[in-house]
């Protein structure tokens, strides 16, 4: 399985020097499939790889520079648009890792800009973005009502000149999900950045990453999210009281289960160091591990039934059963099918 090879090379880049052409091909396809090619290219920088591989990795490093530049520019533009509101703006996920100069940001693919703002300021934020050139991504009446009623974010906005999306969150999990993270505390304790805006405290970043990986979504692309978690712990895990604070914070957000499982999975897959008390095994971890490592040497996810099981689980997590049935029915009528390519 190439996902396992990808993990091995990310942890020990020198291992790559022993690969033959077939293994390199599988490794690169899996890395692209998991959106970890940029991270891989950053890790392998400076190693004496075969010339055909070197050219591919050089392209990926060029893309890393552009991703970084574009992510920082979107942050700049959003902060400029929201500056008159004097409202806290907390960057989330990849943009936050890059803006805060964290290890997790190295080579990371970004895509959309995610920000967190207080729920009571949502209308003002929305209005300010709309007047600064962002517009709704083709509103679909069902999706729009669904978003506004149940989601943790505004429907996505796209900038009409720059063609880049922004997701404005007021909390980190859908309102229909069982855990109710304390978004107000996250915003109150966020760490201001020099150039404006703020990022979550490290323990909140980890809670968010764990929630995103395990309490929201079907874990497609989960390996990259788990890599974020590994990098955050690698960089900060030795700080005094780190684990105690993380434990307390996860409990405050109702995320103890996902946070513990995320740490165990990161330990299982990336060998992340954690206190023994955090690593007491749970029966289903092996299944989660298998789900995260389904990518093969064609960059394709194997084990469709395992993936389908996680897809259904992801909706179960987010919604009470009756709502789930209504939601899936509406999606199916519109021709949506869960098992993607």
């Amino acid at each position: 399985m190439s996902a396992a090879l990808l993990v091995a090379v990310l942890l020990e880049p020198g291992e790559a020097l022993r690969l033959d052409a077939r293994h390199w091909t599988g490794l690169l396809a899996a890395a692209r499939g998991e959106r970890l090619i940029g991270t891989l290219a950053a890790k392998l920088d400076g190693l004496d790889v075969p010339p055909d591989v070197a050219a591919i990795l050089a392209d990926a490093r060029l893309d890393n520079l552009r991703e970084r530049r574009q992510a920082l520019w979107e942050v700049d533009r959003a902060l400029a648009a929201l500056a008159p509101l004097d409202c806290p703006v907390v960057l989330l996920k990849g943009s936050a890792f890059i803006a805060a100069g964290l290890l997790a940001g190295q080579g990371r693919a970004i895509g959309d800009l995610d920000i967190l703002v207080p729920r009571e300021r949502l209308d003002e934020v929305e209005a300010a973005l709309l007047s600064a050139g962002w517009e709704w991504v083709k509103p679909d009446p069902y999706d729009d009502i669904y978003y506004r009623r149940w989601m943790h974010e505004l429907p996505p906005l796209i900038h009409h000149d720059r063609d880049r999306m922004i997701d404005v969150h007021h909390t980190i999990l859908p309102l229909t999900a069982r855990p109710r993270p304390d978004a107000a505390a996250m915003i109150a304790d966020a760490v201001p950045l020099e150039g404006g805006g703020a990022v979550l405290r490290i323990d909140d970043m980890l809670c968010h990453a764990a929630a995103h990986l395990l309490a929201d979504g079907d874990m497609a692309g989960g390996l990259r999210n788990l890599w974020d978690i590994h990098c955050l712990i690698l960089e900060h895990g030795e700080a005094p009281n780190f684990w105690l604070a993380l434990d307390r914070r996860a409990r405050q957000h109702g995320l103890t289960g996902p946070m513990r499982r995320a740490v165990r999975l990161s330990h299982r897959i990336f060998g992340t160091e954690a206190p023994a008390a955090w690593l007491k095994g749970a029966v289903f971890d092996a299944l989660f591990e298998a789900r995260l490592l389904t990518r093969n040497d064609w960059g394709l996810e194997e084990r469709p039934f395992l993936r389908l099981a996680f897809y259904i689980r992801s909706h179960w997590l987010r919604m009470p059963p009756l709502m789930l049935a209504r939601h899936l029915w509406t999606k199916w009528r519109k021709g949506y099918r869960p098992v993607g390519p």
Partner: protein
Amino acid sequence: MRHEIGLGIGPATFRIGSAWRAPLDALARLYAAYPPVDLSRRVPDFTVRLQPTRPWRRLIRPSIFIAGDHWLPEAAPMALEHGLLAAEMGMNLQMALGWRRHVLLHASSVERDGKAIIITGESGSGKSTLAAMLGERGWRLMGDEFALLDPVSGAVFPFPRLISLKNQAIDIATAGIASERLGPLMAATAKGDIRHLVPRADAIARMKEPATPALLLFPQYGPAADRRPVDPGEAFVRLTQASTNYVALGEAGFRALTRFVTQVPAVALDYPDSATVFAAIDDLWSRIG
């Protein structure tokens, strides 16, 4: 993937995997004259996958989903008998979304004496057909779909994939050409009728050889013959619109295109028939030192 083939076109290499044998057999026949790519020794730039839309659609009403390193979730599935087209579209998609070593221009190009004509325009402008016909009339065909502009040297590199002919252009451009150089006629695809043409042997043998851009043409098939110069500013804007990776390349792309439009004369050509356009090209070429 059950079946695979390695292909090299110009500077790019591909691994194409398929759930079915037929599309790869068609590729193997039409790409037989290209230098082989041995996937056990060479790491290809891109992977293309021709996969069933659903697991059971490999055998029951086979339906191809085009995927790979780069893919579009909204791409419409294709019928198995259009598998060759699916493979070509998959390779185009990798180039359009993933190529970073040149400014990729959605343009055809032909060469003579080390100098190249770059022909661009919207689909329906005839750029592919013109290049195909020039390629049979003493020019070296460099590519019917993508021209690769080197940001370092300013030279244009070839990408002579199979020439994709559409609808009425099929009869016009394949007249007198041996059947070994023609792919199957694929009727009623999403793009109309499609037939592939293998470039001439010299185009394939010299597929790594660049040329200096000497003329930029914007042809437009229409009722009246007309010819007018295009100023560098307009040429620049039209080239950025014809490039899929201009933004991705950042300053290198900006410098390459500004240099290109300041050095290469650009002409818009309206033509009612092929005789007119060939005469105009001969005339323009004779004025280029």
